[in-house]
């Protein structure tokens, strides 16, 4: 063996040894533990009083996250509520429904705004509420709550849905088997199957953007500042300050999901 060969082989051996060594380092438990903590904890703040139902956020979201534009699913959506003075829902003939219900809709997920007083009640039918009957009407933006105790993560049989250290719930598109259990498990109706990818899909606070210091597409596109994203671990973040010192509500706290989307001026009628 000449020197040249010797050197060659030594390098190969070192390189070969380095691979398993680095693999070992990769699964070092201390580093895994470190992955469990983060300087970030993403939260969302929606001000229903500022939302005018223009639907720009839905448009932006669909384009940014490549959810087919015309498909009747969306990662985020805007709901319109029309509450009557007698607290009853109006049905097709304009009469109040004695039993239960509420007048609300979100046609095309609110993508094109709400340009008509006609309320969508499904299958192409509409109902119009008499103006003198209305006590209040408002819009509510919705998105994934990135729950702190997410049932969708709990029920996924293969662990394809998981929660990151910075508080966002993600879906591994390469591992999801498409059973739909997470869709059933989410009390907020946030999840759906991606029409092209055929895997579970939902809002992830534009994870690819926020981790690069950008705002989410919906926050960026809202002309009225109704949507804000913040870092709960930063005490000076304006969103954090509002959540800490202001009066905020969350949706469906009775499910124990600990939602991380906070609302200002959340009406009791919001579903």
């Amino acid at each position, binding site marked *: 063996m000449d020197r040249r060969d010797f050197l060659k082989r030594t390098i190969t051996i070192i390189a070969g040894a380095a691979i398993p060594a680095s693999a070992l380092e990769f699964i070092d438990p201390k580093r895994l533990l470190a992955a469990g903590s983060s300087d970030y904890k993403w939260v969302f703040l929606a001000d229903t009083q500022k939302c005018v139902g223009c639907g720009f956020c839905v448009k932006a979201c669909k384009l940014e996250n490549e959810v087919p534009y015309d498909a*009747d699913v969306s990662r985020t959506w805007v709901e319109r509520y029309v509450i009557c003075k007698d607290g009853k*829902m109006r049905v097709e003939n304009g009469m109040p429904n004695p039993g239960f219900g509420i007048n609300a809709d979100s046609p*095309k997920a609110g993508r094109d705004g709400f340009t008509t007083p006609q309320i969508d009640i499904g299958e192409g039918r509409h109902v119009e509420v008499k103006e003198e009957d209305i006590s209040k009407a408002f819009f509510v933006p919705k998105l994934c709550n990135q729950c702190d105790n997410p049932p969708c993560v709990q029920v996924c049989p293969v662990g394809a849905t998981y929660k990151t250290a910075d508080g966002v719930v993600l879906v591994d598109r390469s591992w999801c088997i498409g059973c739909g259990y997470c869709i059933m*498990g989410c009390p907020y109706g946030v999840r759906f199957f991606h029409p092209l990818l055929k895997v579970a899909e939902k809002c992830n606070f534009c994870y690819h953007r926020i981790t690069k210091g950008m705002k989410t597409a919906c926050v960026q596109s809202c002309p009225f500042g109704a949507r804000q994203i913040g870092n709960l671990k930063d005490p000076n973040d304006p969103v954090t300050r509002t959540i800490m010192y202001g009066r905020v509500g969350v949706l469906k706290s009775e499910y124990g999901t600990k939602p991380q989307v906070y609302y200002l001026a959340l009406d009791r009628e919001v579903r």
Partner: protein
Amino acid sequence: MMEVHGEVWTLKEFFCYPNEYIYWSIQIVMYPFMTGLVAGAFVLSSLYHVFGVKQLKNIARFSLVFSFALLPVAMMPLMLHLQQPLRGIHVMMTPHFTSAIAAFGIVFSTYGMIVASELWFVYRPHFVATALELKGTSDRGLVDTCRYLLFSALTLGSYDISEQALEKDEKAVGFLAGIGIPVACFLHGYAGFIFGSVKANALWMTPLMPVIFICSAVVSGIALCIITYIVTMEIRKFLSRRMSTLGLPSYEELQSAEIEEVKLTSRYLVMFLIAAITLELLDLIFRGYTAVKSWDILREVIYQKDFYKIFVMQYGMGNLLPFILFKLPGLTVRRAALGACLMLFGVFMMRWNVVIGGQAFSSSFAGFMEYALPIIPHNLETVKEGLVGAVAVIITPYVLFYFINKVMPVFKFKGSH
């Protein structure tokens, strides 16, 4: 326009969230229905093997083989349901145990192994006899050679069929049937847990769900065994009349054996039916009495939207009517067959009303969804999750039974069990 999964068969009314559709469709109705049949058939066979109900001898062997034929079919609806069927195996590779579905593979294969080994012990003498007989034949054709290879493989090299050996077999069968009962109940109670633990669904979430599922599973399993047993017996009676020279049991013998077994089995059927109904009614009353937030919409679904499906089809036609049929004095084979068919239908409707009924209202509690079963398919999705897929799932166990029966004959063989 781009079609979203579930959109074709979902009709929405009033306020539903935009992403809500009937995501769990007919195949998820079939899944608990089929596992229920598996579990029920097995429990029936165990009544003979474990509790020594001697009169059930024939039907016990039959239901054991049939439950084996049903076993692979319990997987089928799941595969037809998955959006990524090729990734189904991930459940075994990376099970995520906080999920109620994750243990499915483990529970299912444990149960499968128990049924397979029990069958082996029951049929071992038959395997040995057939293998030896074929061995003795001097010039075997191709078919017989294959059969010889198959049967000698099936003996697993154990040719001892002495008195003591058979006694040991019998013990093993009893033991396997014994542990099989809790595992079968677990397999199916577990299907109930998959639904009962979904806190987001107001109709599903109840701790009674697993128990209700087990009781109705046993009902459906026994009902199916009765029907299939009657059908096969009718065929045999027909044959014995046609070819009385073949040494088959006589027509009268078959006739009296048949009605005896059916009568006894139907007694168990009615028992489990009463248990199932009691629990279901308890659940309903409890919901109405406590009337939590979701009751407004649930009441609307149960008493208005799904009234016909729940009270007429499930409770009326599927439970009450067959109950009367079985309880009227002088039970005949024909009436028992009709009653069993109706019960099977009742259990199917129960599954439907749970799975589809649970999605009949929006999580907003302010809107309804209706499932329109795709009958004539126009794409792969409507084949899999439509009438065609459901019928395929129903037919498969019979096809399998036909082939399994070739190897493990349910009727012709005379063994110690």
